[in-house]
């Protein structure tokens, strides 16, 4: 396979998976149990994504500057700080820890 073939095949596969979900009729979500499950699925996916983004690199668990940065973000969210401030503070925390050499 050439690099271009790989790129196009993978892109089509990823796009097709997105479109597939739109073939499910919206009425499926109108039942309370399905609606509730859909809401909870978003929560579960986001929680899992946070974990993956924070403590993993590829297939290994890695503790680095991302974890303290997310803890800072959580503290600010608990204090009802604006969203953009939370994100900036997280980036600054990680950047500062790395610049100081205190975390990878």
């Amino acid at each position, binding site marked *: *396979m050439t*690099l271009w073939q*790989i*790129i*196009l095949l*993978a*892109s089509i*596969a*990823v*796009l097709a*998976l*997105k*479109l*597939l*979900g*739109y073939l499910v009729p*919206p009425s499926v*979500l109108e039942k309370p*149990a*399905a609606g*509730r*499950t*859909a*809401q*909870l*699925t*978003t*929560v*579960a*996916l*986001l*929680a*899992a994504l*946070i974990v993956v*983004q*924070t*403590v*993993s690199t*590829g*297939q*290994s*668990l890695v503790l680095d500057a*991302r974890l303290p*940065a997310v803890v800072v*973000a*959580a503290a600010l*969210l608990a204090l009802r700080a*604006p*969203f953009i401030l*939370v*994100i*900036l503070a*997280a*980036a*600054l*925390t*990680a*950047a500062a820890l*790395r*610049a100081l050499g205190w975390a990878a």
Partner: protein
Amino acid sequence: MNGPRASRHPAPRSAPAPGVAEARRASWAVGLAVAAYGVSFGALAVASGLDVWQACVLSLVMFSGGSQFALIGVLASGGAAAGPAAIAGAALLGLRNGLYAIRVSPIVGAGFWRRLLAGHLTIDESTAVATAQATPEGQRAGFWWTGWIIFLGWNLMTLLGALLGDLLGDVSAYGLDAAAAAAFLGLVWPRLRALQPVAVAVGAAVVAAATIPVLPAGVPVILAALVAVVVGPLDLLGRPVAAPIEHHADVPPAPDAGEADR
């Protein structure tokens, strides 16, 4: 654009629908943080052996950050010979977008072309911002604004990263990887007001953390979503505090639904 205070003297025709202003603010906050990370994809893609065009086609057509990083990660270590594995990895990570699509399908509006476009813009962030909004108008605005901001920004930054590459150095020095995690945390935070979603979030986090080392990338997230599929239909751990009480206030709890003893 009118600030929030301008709405104190609303002009009937130009007043935005309720919730739209909040949705736009969230869209910009999430969108800019995430789009900025595209620079890191562009730089890494070129470092893994892709040319600038290939990096840009990935961001234009695949447009799914997790899948894109997975693809170039496998290609970087195995080259074109690792093609099938790279495609499988990208598809696996893209699977969750299909689940998101089911969720946002009623939000995006009608029409074939609109839904086709919505399909392309269905990613973590557009779904998360949309579903975090309180009103239907806000949900729709959140989906489209976030989707467009990230699509345009992500592709622009991919090009920039691919062209500048080494000049930028390691983008993790700017803490953008932590910003992405913080953005997801900010989106899930408002939903954690009742026992049920909190339990689901903790359960999903534990499942993901426990399976990251043993399962291929992408699978832990899908597996974690199953926590919701178990809890949801059975309505384990009860109704959220914010159940629609207003119009049921005069209806006594159904004795057989387990509501009476809560």
